[in-house]
Each structure stands twice: as structure tokens, then as C-alpha cells.
């Protein structure tokens, strides 16, 4: 049930065909897990917060560094050396006091990922390294939870939506781990990709539109072009080769 204040606050999106009060109610009841409060995690959490997602959990083990400030827009100069989750929680609560924000300062590991993700309806991958992304992928498959992937490099970015049992998984896409390296990035790249991930999350929860399921959207900011390819399922995938699942809707 939406309050008068909520009806007014979300009026412009409730007006969208297929959205309505019912869709807004779904957002209010949704629990979203965001892995990472960095370049992608900031725009994702901002737009999910202002859209009225009822519970957002954001996990990050880092503190804010000066070199984060060109893109991690929830963290400001005054936040340097502060815990990212604390900085993010404060700003997100300011943006929307009507929702629940939980910030967890943890490194996501094999040992804690299952417990961290428990009781959430979907996982948003806003990480900066492949090994944690693989962990999120396996957990999403095991728990039959959709995973919303994004990654950036320079002015470029990519996004896809993984529905366990229906689409190829992240491991099908990243069969080999790209080497760990300091990645060049301008803030507008994670802004674009993070907004695409947030768009997918909102669509999935509300149940409207066509998801990037099985499709990889690739963005090149320098030429300002998008291209799309079909993600091929790897029958020998060590993570999803034998997955049997169903589509879970919130």
C-alpha cells in the first residue's frame, strides 16, 4: 500500500504505461543487493533509491580515495578516507528517507557471499574485479536470483542481464579472467552503464519492457555508438553448464 506522499513522490513514473501503482508497490517490496559502492554502484544505487526500491543493501570493503572522486559520485572530497558504505548510505538516505538502506563493509568472499545475498530478490554486479564477479555469478545461479552485470573501460562499457536457467551466465561470457590491472575510466562511462543496469533492475521488478537477457549491450562513448551481440551459452560452462531453473519474479 502506497502512502499519499509516495503516490505524489512517484507520480511521474506511476504514470508510465504498464507501471502504475502496482509497479510502484513491487518496487517498494523489492530487496536489491548491490555489490560495490564504486563507479557503477553509485549511479545504480542513486537511481534505485529515487525510484523507490524498498530495501537496498550495498556492500563494499573500501575507503574513499582521492582517485575515486572523478566517477564515484556518492563520495565527495569531504569523504576521503571514510568508509564507502557509510558515505553512500548517508547520501542515499538523504535522497530518499522513505526507503531502507543497509551498508555493509565487507569483502565479498566464498565464505560470506551466500549469507550476504540471502533475503534479496536480485543481485547487481558493480564490482571491479572478475573473481568477485564469478562468485556473484555462482551464487546467483545457486539461489536462482537474477544478476545484472555491467563493466567499464575508458569511455566504454557493457551490460547484460543474467536470468538463471534461461540465459547464458557471466562465466559463459567471461570464459577467461581478464588480467587484473588499474583500469582507465572517465566518470560518464560508469554513469551510462550504471543507469542501464538500474533500468534493467526497475524493468525486471515492475515486469515491463524487454530485458537485456542473453544480449550484451556494448557502449562506446567516444564514437557515441551502441552495439549489441547475442551472448552464447557455453555448454561446457563450469558454472551453468547443467543449470536447471525457472524465472523468478518479485
Amino acid at each position, binding site marked *: 500500500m502506497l502512502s499519499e506522499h509516495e503516490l505524489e513522490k512517484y507520480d511521474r513514473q506511476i504514470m508510465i504505461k504498464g507501471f502504475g501503482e502496482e509497479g510502484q508497490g513491487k518496487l517498494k517490496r523489492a530487496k536489491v543487493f548491490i555489490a560495490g559502492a564504486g563507479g557503477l554502484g553509485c549511479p545504480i544505487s542513486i537511481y534505485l533509491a529515487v525510484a523507490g526500491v524498498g530495501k537496498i543493501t550495498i556492500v563494499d570493503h573500501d575507503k574513499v580515495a582521492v582517485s575515486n572522486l572523478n566517477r564515484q559520485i556518492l563520495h565527495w572530497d569531504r569523504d576521503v578516507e571514510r568508509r564507502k558504505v557509510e558515505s553512500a548510505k548517508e547520501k542515499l538516505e538523504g535522497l530518499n528517507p522513505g526507503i531502507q538502506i543497509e551498508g555493509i563493509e565487507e569483502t565479498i568472499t566464498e565464505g560470506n557471499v551466500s549469507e550476504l545475498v540471502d533475503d534479496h530478490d536480485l543481485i547487481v554486479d558493480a564490482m571491479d574485479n572478475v573473481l568477485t564477479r564469478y562468485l556473484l555469478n555462482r551464487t546467483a545461479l545457486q539461489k536462482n536470483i537474477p544478476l545484472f552485470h555491467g563493466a567499464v573501460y575508458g*569511455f566504454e562499457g557493457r551490460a547484460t542481464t543474467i536470468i538463471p536457467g534461461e540465459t547464458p551466465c557471466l562465466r559463459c561470457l567471461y570464459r577467461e579472467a581478464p588480467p587484473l590491472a588499474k583500469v582507465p575510466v572517465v566518470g560518464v562511462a560508469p554513469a551510462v552503464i550504471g543507469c542501464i543496469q538500474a533500468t534493467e533492475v526497475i524493468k525486471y521488478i515492475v515486469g515491463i519492457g524487454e530485458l537485456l537477457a542473453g544480449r550484451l549491450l556494448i557502449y562506446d562513448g567516444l564514437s557515441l555508438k551502441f552495439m549489441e*551481440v547475442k551472448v552464447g551459452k557455453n555448454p561446457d560452462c563450469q558454472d551453468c553448464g547443467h543449470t536447471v531453473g525457472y524465472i523468478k519474479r518479485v
Partner: protein
Amino acid sequence: MSVKIRIPPILQELLGTPDIVEMPGCNFRECLDELEIQFPGIKGQLYDKHGHLNGIYDIYVNDESAYPNELSKPLKDGDVVSIVMLYMGG
């Protein structure tokens, strides 16, 4: 017979290629041999030290994954081959 090859921005920058080049070739391996003549160094970027396709690149033909036979998959006139780099920044 020729196919169009989409080059990712990082290779455009490294090798001075345009974003799309047209190359003759019945498969991607043949196209790469031709590409190497015009843009020396591209094979060094796309192959690993064992002569296999470097794992940080994916090859798509007409927007569908060419895995696992990226180099030998037969191509026909007008096909579009996309070289897509994997990255993980967040």
C-alpha cells in the same frame, strides 16, 4: 569475397585502424593474415604466446558468438565480424 571487421576502440587506438575494415577471407584466421599486412601488430594483440586467440577478446559473426571455432568458422560475403574486448572495470 569480403567481410566487414569491427575493430574495438582499444585496437583502433593502438594500431591506428578505422572502426570497420573490409577484408577478404573465408574464415577469421585468413582475415587476420590480411589485417596483419595492413595493420602490423594486430595478430600480436589477438593471439596469445601459444598462437591461440587471446582470451580477453571475443569474436562475434553477425552479432552471434563464434566460440569455440572463432578462427576457423566459415565466413561468407557480407558477414560482419566483431572483435570485442573483455574488461572488468567498475
